[in-house]
């Protein structure tokens, strides 16, 4: 065991105490503080996840309505052009911010971080609770905008001024846009409180023996994404505040001189480009704020369900960190058509393509993990594999769009819609599904129904391709994005309409499959097969809790001690095909000789 002691020499860091003093742990005193105003990260995680799913369902229904309009134009009178814009906007914003970000960081982050690093709870439980309630408030404000006079904003999820706050845009001069901006500001405040917790818990509350380089990649992904979010969301905050100023106080940060409804508007000299810079300075990192947790979770799912240690763990960690850093200097690839100095375009195209390198490394490592693995095609594994395929797919079209000359003609067509749905819509959603199938037994003590899971998977997987693959083609022949109705055009063939109808039907079927999934979630709480503490025979810490579901304080009387990384699968000479992180070397049959 020479390797074990050598890295320790000259490394005088403190070894954390064996136990957190009891006073530090919050104890619920009543039903209300236990289940509603809970300060237990596990409950908060579930609250985040439930709220995000609920608002995500709204976004799903909006996508059906949009699809109905696109597939069968003229049939549904109740979907006016104004409403179509409102649906698009709310669908996009909800999906990106209120569903994906909240679910990955607030949901999985809260549930998994303390369990995976061996902590009893988040470091600041009270602030953690506040974080959730502010998030809920943000969601409610968002929902309120549906009922506001004039309806929600229809400015597109990018909220570009000047149109976002002009009368031509639905909700532009009413409360729709105001509620949207206020809701975003609240979301950011709430997230910052939670994010502080995730970061500090990872840095300061790890169990004994849990070095950073022994953490599961899930934690690395969520951790890095949180750091990014803490630094990127302020840009959205700034844009939202300045837009509110322009709208309510008549300033001209973003608003140029313009004529509105035949009258000269009160604004002068402002710059819509300024908004775009600020917005995308948040917007691009946002893609990776969603993707990095997905990367991490997928790595763990693959490793567990292929019974193989993750290939190139170190490289995976570095890649996560490097991607996180690089994603702050590519934002302007969203602005190729906004007009910019060609040198800038060149610069941003280059940085965009460079990100593909660490990303590709991750994909290779996943494949090498699978290579000769003992692959179990469980539902979580299926979703993880589906993620890899879909992400590669969306990533490849991203490489096209990253180049200025390709992007300019394709921008604002359905090709872009297909691209970003593949890479940041469908792919992360698959990971969320996989993660839920994987961790549900830990959360409830029961397995999700396998048959329903398989149906859910195959319908969603094949369906997503039937929906979004044809959209690439539609984009290539020039079908524009954000159009309520195409109308008579010379360059778009009749067949495009047929294709659109087909996509809509598949979208409805895929939507129905999600209902089956929700039913499964509810049904299995009572009727699922009891899972036992570790149904997947996984090595990472969260599966080694004394109770399932984990009790208050997670670890019973003593905190766990970590002796190894989270990926000891099929270690030669070991009695079982996995060695939990808590098992000391002397307890495995062959210590030291392995590999």
């Amino acid at each position, binding site marked *: *065991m020479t*390797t*074990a*002691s050598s*890295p320790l020499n000259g*490394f*005088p*860091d*403190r*070894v*954390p105490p064996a136990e957190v003093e009891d006073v530090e742990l919050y104890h619920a005193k009543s039903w209300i503080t236990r289940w509603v105003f809970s300060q237990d990260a596990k409950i908060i995680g579930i609250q985040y996840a439930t709220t995000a799913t609920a608002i995500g369902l709204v976004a799903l229904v909006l996508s059906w309505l949009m699809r109905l309009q696109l597939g069968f134009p003229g049939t549904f009178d109740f979907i006016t052009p104004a409403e179509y814009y409102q649906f698009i906007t709310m669908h996009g914003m909800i999906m990106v911010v209120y569903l994906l970000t909240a679910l990955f960081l607030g949901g999985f982050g809260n549930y998994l971080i303390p369990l995976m690093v061996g902590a009893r709870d988040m*470091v600041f439980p009270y602030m953690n609770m506040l974080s959730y309630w502010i998030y809920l408030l943000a969601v409610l404000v968002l929902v309120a905008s549906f009922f506001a006079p004039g309806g929600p904003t229809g400015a597109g999820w990018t909220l570009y001024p000047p149109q976002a706050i002009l009368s031509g845009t639905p909700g532009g001069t009413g409360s729709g846009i105001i509620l949207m901006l206020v809701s975003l500001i609240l979301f950011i405040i709430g997230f*910052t409180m939670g994010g*502080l917790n995730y970061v*500090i818990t990872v*840095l*300061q*509350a*790890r*169990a*004994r*023996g849990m*070095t*950073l*380089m022994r953490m599961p990649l899930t934690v690395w992904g969520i951790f890095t994404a949180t*750091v990014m979010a*803490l*630094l990127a969301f*302020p840009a959205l*905050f*700034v844009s939202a505040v*300045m837009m509110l*100023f322009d709208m309510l*106080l*008549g*300033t*001209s*940060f973003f608003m140029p001189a313009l004529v509105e409804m035949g009258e000269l508007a009160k604004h*002068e*000299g*402002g*710059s819509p480009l*300024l908004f775009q810079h*600020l917005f995308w*300075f948040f917007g691009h990192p946002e893609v990776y704020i969603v993707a990095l947790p997905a990367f991490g979770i997928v790595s763990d799912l693959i490793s567990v369900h292929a019974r193989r*240690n993750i290939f190139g*763990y*170190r490289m995976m960690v570095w890649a996560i*960190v490097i991607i996180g850093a690089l994603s*702050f*200097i590519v934002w302007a690839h969203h602005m190729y058509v906004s007009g910019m100095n060609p040198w800038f375009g060149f610069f941003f195209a280059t940085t965009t393509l460079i990100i593909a390198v660490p990303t590709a490394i991750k994909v290779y490592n996943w494949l090498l993990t699978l290579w000769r693995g003992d692959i179990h095609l469980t539902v979580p594994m299926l979703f993880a594999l589906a993620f890899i395929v879909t992400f590669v797919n969306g990533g490849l079209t991203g490489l096209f769009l990253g180049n200025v000359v390709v992007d300019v003609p394709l921008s604002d067509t359905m090709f872009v819609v297909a691209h970003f749905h593949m890479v940041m819509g469908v792919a992360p959603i698959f990971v969320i599904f996989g993660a839920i199938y994987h961790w549900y037994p830990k959360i409830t003590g029961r397995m999700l129904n396998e048959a329903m899971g398989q149906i859910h998977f195959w319908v969603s997987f094949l369906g997503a391709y039937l929906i979004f693959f044809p959209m690439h083609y539609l984009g290539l022949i020039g079908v524009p994005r954000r159009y309520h109705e195409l109308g008579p055009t010379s360059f778009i063939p009749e067949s495009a309409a047929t294709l659109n109808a087909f996509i809509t039907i598949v979208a409805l079927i895929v939507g129905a499959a999600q209902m089956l999934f929700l039913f499964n979630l509810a049904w299995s709480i009572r009727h699922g097969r009891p899972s036992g503490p570790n149904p997947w025979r996984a090595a990472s810490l969260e599966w080694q809790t004394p109770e399932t579901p984990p009790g208050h304080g997670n670890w019973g009387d003593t905190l766990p001690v970590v002796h*190894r*990384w989270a*990926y*000891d699968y099929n270690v030669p000479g070991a009695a079982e095909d996995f060695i939990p992180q808590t098992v*000391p*070397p002397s307890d495995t049959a062959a*210590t*030291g000789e392995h*590999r």
Partner: protein
Amino acid sequence: MTAIIIYLAIVGSVVAVFLSRQRLLAKPWLEAGPEGVLPGTGPSTLAPATLALWIIIAVAGALFTLFISAWLMRRHMGHDWRHGLHLPHILWVTTAILAAGSIALHLAQRAAGEGPRGGMQAALAASWLLALLFLGGQALAWRAMIAAGQGVAASPDVSFFYLLTGVHALHVAGGMIALAAVTVGALRREPEAARDPLALCATYWHFLLVAWLVLFGLMLHG
């Protein structure tokens, strides 16, 4: 966006230095630790609250820097930038008040550590007075601007004046909420126990001072 990029580069370097001390070169797959030997897991010896404060400062710093970036960009966009704000003179006074508040908190923290209880209380009282005076002074500055016909929509640099002073004042107010909690604790319990929390408040006030100096300098420069 140059300002924010430089800022993030600095934050990134701090993170990089931190990570470089975390044995990122370790090969975890080779190291099942022997019995009894636990690797230092490398959490810094900082208390969680201290670390939290620094993260808050980093995030608030990013926020201010983004506003500064917006200022620097907007400056060259459009022809309505006035280049030369007529700032009310009271801002010089409030700057001094803020600096004094920063010192007062520093003294309060020092006194909590050693001196008699009275010293800490006096310094705390002074800190509160100075914080309130600062906010009042900023409000007077707004009044002076409005009286001079420089309303919020008068010109973009004036709009920025309100925006920047407003955001900064909100951060001061937020700090006062934390200070209130610390004050209550300091009066109830041993002054000793208040030392660390007061030190955090002092650090935050130093940050507010630095941020203000940068913003004020920017506005003076035009």
